[in-house]
């Protein structure tokens, strides 16, 4: 695939990767290097979190405690949840891929505040070090830290609170940086309606990070204060209200699922047109639905609390709002599907993962109304149905989007191509393993198995065994994929500047991009989805 346009700088060696030595990384102000550091860090935590998940599945092979005590099981599911949420899925796409590609997408040399960007990474690093430090007395509270249990637990909750506060700060600063970057540093001619949809997703995400994260920050401060000073906001014996903790927690933690999913949706919106050779269908609808989801996401936090003894009015309002936030998500799915219509579709790994995202996200999305409707929520809440729904949207959604992005941009980030055959084998294993693991959990949930159970009644045995087998297949897929990435890094074929013949700006930079990104700031004259012929 020889150069598509004369504008493109051909990859001349290692680009932004030329400089060597740890100092060139630790003190770098280059958004690409900072993004790469986030990607490495978060991927490691993804793998660690995955190991915990496998240990959980292993224990659930038998109804009775066999390999670990109940306490150990509880520690494992807490660590699985907390690591996956706070150290992988929240930072992975926004801070990792976002850092790398926002400036490249909008035609800027860097983010608005490069020093702040580096500081964000190190605050993040401090946060995860503190969290690792809290393992001296590992948490057994679940990643939701519900009071009063978390206020009484003998585990190092105070330390962990501090760690999550730091992670939150990093997240806020990154979001702030992106907002300003997108407002102020777009290349000439890059109007809002010429922005790639990934940028719309990232912008909406950043808004949520800036608005919602401080609330969870202060919530964890209050939890720490409750343990240190005996402050009683959440302590019923002092007149406090444990449910207030849940309000604060979910005011952040519900919008934050959109921090996870919106950038992934952005990636899918990038990948689908490129591999269908068609313009994206309904650009404005996709762009504005990202914003609508981000804002609407703030109105629905109460649906995590329908059985928490909330007032009937609050239950009704939050249920209604929950349903409305489903509409813009549905719109996106319809638009992606319509983009495929009359395309010329190829199935390279990024496209496979993007299509998988849509497929699994539809399952996750359509199981949402069961949980949004009050009466069925009362039945299904806190059962494996919720676990399955959550994993279909977050792992089937966000993680598949993340993998689509990694495969799509791997040539750009590293200057090397991946082995397509191995990538497809990995994809097949992941797809099958995922569905076997998590679809079974819907059945478990409908049959009434509560979540967070170290031991369970024998009648749930069969499904749990099937699910565990699925998780092994899934893990095998992930391993093959990791191996493929490492092989690609070491000896992948050199990548051209634009292997996928895509139109967005990052492909005009070299692979890997030079530190300055572009030889000169590009002048933008059209949107990035001009595929196809106008009168085809």
């Amino acid at each position, binding site marked *: 695939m020889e150069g598509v346009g004369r504008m493109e700088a051909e990859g001349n060696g290692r680009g932004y990767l030329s400089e060597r030595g740890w100092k060139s990384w630790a003190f770098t102000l280059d958004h690409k290097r900072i993004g790469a550091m986030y990607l490495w860090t978060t991927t490691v935590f993804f793998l660690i979190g995955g190991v915990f998940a496998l240990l959980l599945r292993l224990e659930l092979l038998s109804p009775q405690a066999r390999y670990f005590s109940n306490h150990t099981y509880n520690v494992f599911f807490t660590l699985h949840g907390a690591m996956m949420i706070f150290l992988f899925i929240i930072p992975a796409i926004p801070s990792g891929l976002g850092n790398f590609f926002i400036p490249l997408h909008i035609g800027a040399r860097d983010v608005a505040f490069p020093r702040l960007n580096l500081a964000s990474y190190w605050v993040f690093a401090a946060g995860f070090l503190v969290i690792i430090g809290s393992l001296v007395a590992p948490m057994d509270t679940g990643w939701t830290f519900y009071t009063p249990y978390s206020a009484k637990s003998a585990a190092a909750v105070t330390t962990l609170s501090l760690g999550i506060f730091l992670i939150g700060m990093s997240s806020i600063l990154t979001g702030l940086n992106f907002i300003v970057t997108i407002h102020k540093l777009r290349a000439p001619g890059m109007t809002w309606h010429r922005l790639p949809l990934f940028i719309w997703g990232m912008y909406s995400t950043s808004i949520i990070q800036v*608005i919602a994260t401080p609330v969870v920050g202060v919530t964890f401060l209050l939890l720490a204060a409750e343990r240190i000073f005996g402050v009683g906001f959440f302590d019923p014996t002092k007149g406090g*209200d444990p*449910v207030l903790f849940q*309000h604060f927690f979910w005011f952040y933690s519900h919008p934050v699922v959109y921090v996870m999913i919106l950038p992934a949706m952005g990636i899918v919106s990038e990948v689908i047109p490129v591999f269908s050779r068609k313009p994206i269908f309904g650009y404005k609808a996709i762009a504005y639905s990202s914003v609508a989801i981000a804002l609407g996401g703030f*109105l629905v936090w*109460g649906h995590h609390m329908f059985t928490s003894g909330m*007032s009937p*009015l*609050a239950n009704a309002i*939050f249920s209604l709002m929950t349903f409305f936030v489903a509409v813009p998500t549905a719109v996106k799915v319809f638009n992606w599907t319509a983009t495929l219509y009359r395309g010329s579709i190829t199935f390279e790994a990024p496209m496979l993962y993007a299509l998988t995202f849509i497929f699994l996200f539809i399952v996750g999305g359509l199981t949402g109304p069961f949980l949004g409707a009050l009466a069925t929520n009362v039945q299904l809440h806190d059962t494996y149905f919720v676990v399955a729904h959550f994993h279909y949207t977050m792992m089937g959604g966000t993680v598949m989007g993340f993998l689509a992005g990694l495969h799509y941009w791997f040539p750009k980030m590293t200057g090397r191509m991946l082995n397509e055959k191995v990538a497809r084998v990995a994809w097949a294993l992941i797809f099958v393993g995922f569905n076997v693991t998590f679809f079974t959990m819907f059945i478990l949930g409908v049959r009434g198995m509560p979540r967070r159970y170290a031991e369970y009644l024998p009648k749930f045995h069969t499904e749990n065994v099937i699910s565990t087998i699925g998780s092994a297949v899934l893990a095998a897929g992930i391993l093959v994929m990791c191996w493929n990435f490492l092989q690609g890094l070491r000896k992948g074929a050199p990548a051209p500047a634009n292997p996928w013949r895509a139109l967005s700006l990052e492909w005009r930079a070299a692979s890997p991009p030079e530190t300055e990104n572009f030889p000169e700031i590009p002048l933008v004259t059209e949107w990035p989805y001009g595929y196809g012929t106008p009168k085809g």
Partner: protein
Amino acid sequence: MAHGTGHSRRAGIAVFVALLLLTAVTVLVSYVDLGLWNTVVALLIASVKASLVALFFMHLKGESRLVWGFALFPIVFLALILLGTLSDTMLR
């Protein structure tokens, strides 16, 4: 970039005096028992003071719509977390 002028200094001092007066008023009113109205009056005065600070000290008055947006935006969410939480705690 607007440069400092005598006018902006005079405006700053005028706002300062207004803030002092309003502080005095709110303290004096608090000694009178108005029932629930004490809270309303106190919050009203505080909001006037806050607006003065934002408009003049923080130059919101002459800012672009973008900055206005970012200044007002969080207040919507403040209202949201308050009302959302109260819709539960007040009506249980």
